[in-house]
């Protein structure tokens, strides 16, 4: 019985060695992760736990940094730093703003 992250020893295909540079969004998620750990808002193991708790489908659908973004939101909401309501509202606002900008 394994979490979706515990993959040591499982069968898998060839290692895809294609290089992938971080895009700007990924760099920002990485930076937020570093800063929140440094500032003591959440511990590395809290972050890992949130990622491990995603379940197999989510873990394998989301990209590496999407998992981090999801964990960031989840842990901050669980700890009361953010509320689900304000996150939902902000997602809607960003979506609307980007749609207006694109129009």
């Amino acid at each position, binding site marked *: 019985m394994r979490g979706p*992250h*515990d*993959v*040591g*020893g*499982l*069968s*898998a*295909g*060839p*290692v*895809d*060695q*294609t*290089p*992938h540079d*971080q*895009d700007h*969004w990924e*760099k*920002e*998620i*990485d*930076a*937020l992760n*570093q*800063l*929140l*750990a440094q*500032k003591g*808002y959440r511990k*590395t193991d809290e972050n*890992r736990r949130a*990622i491990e708790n995603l379940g197999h*489908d989510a873990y*394998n*659908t*989301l*990209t*590496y*940094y*999407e998992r981090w*973004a*999801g964990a*960031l*939101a989840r842990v*901050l909401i669980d700890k009361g*730093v*953010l509320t689900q309501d*304000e*996150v939902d509202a*902000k*997602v809607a*606002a*960003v*979506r609307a703003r*980007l749609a207006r900008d694109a129009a």
Partner: protein
Amino acid sequence: MLAHGHDHDDHAPVEEDAKVHSYYWLLGIAVKELLIEKGIVTPDEIRRAIEFRDSITPATGAAIVARAWTDSAFKQRLLTDGSEAIGEFGLNMGGTHLVVVENTPDVHNMIVCTLCSCYPRNVLGLPPAWYKNREYRARAVREPRRVLAEFGLEVPEEVEVRVHDSTADMRYLVLPMRPAGTEKLDASELAEIVTRDCMIGVAVPKAP
């Protein structure tokens, strides 16, 4: 965003995936903006954290290896306490600890984090995508030699392939063997033959 392969048997259609990816992209932006609005982080801090991350590259680690090859007292310090020794380069490991493992004629070291993607970022920079993906993490502990062969490296059977699974706060860096034919190179020329993959353990340096 990274391409990924996974089993679609029980999985939602690809159109639903696109909506999920779009949502997570928005979520990341939303969290960033909220944290800035609340004064928890500033745009300047984000910029500086990105710059810090970008400032460390495999060349950082290569310089450490080259010094270890040319200064045996430093090499001893590095092998005894990696976290302390990199202080001589103005580097530090933050909350983790650096363990440098030396390749010898009897032992070839290879580093993995099967559970996530632990990697000596403060010495090598960001890990390559393959290091974080399922295939490497699953197979490095199970069939390391087949993985090494995919990277073009064959290790003789009598040599011990020692895989380090970074399960706790130790971060591992491979100190490769200095190849023959490099006796006349200085430290900066030596650093040029030490690639990131040599310090992860899926390659060995080649004399120019």
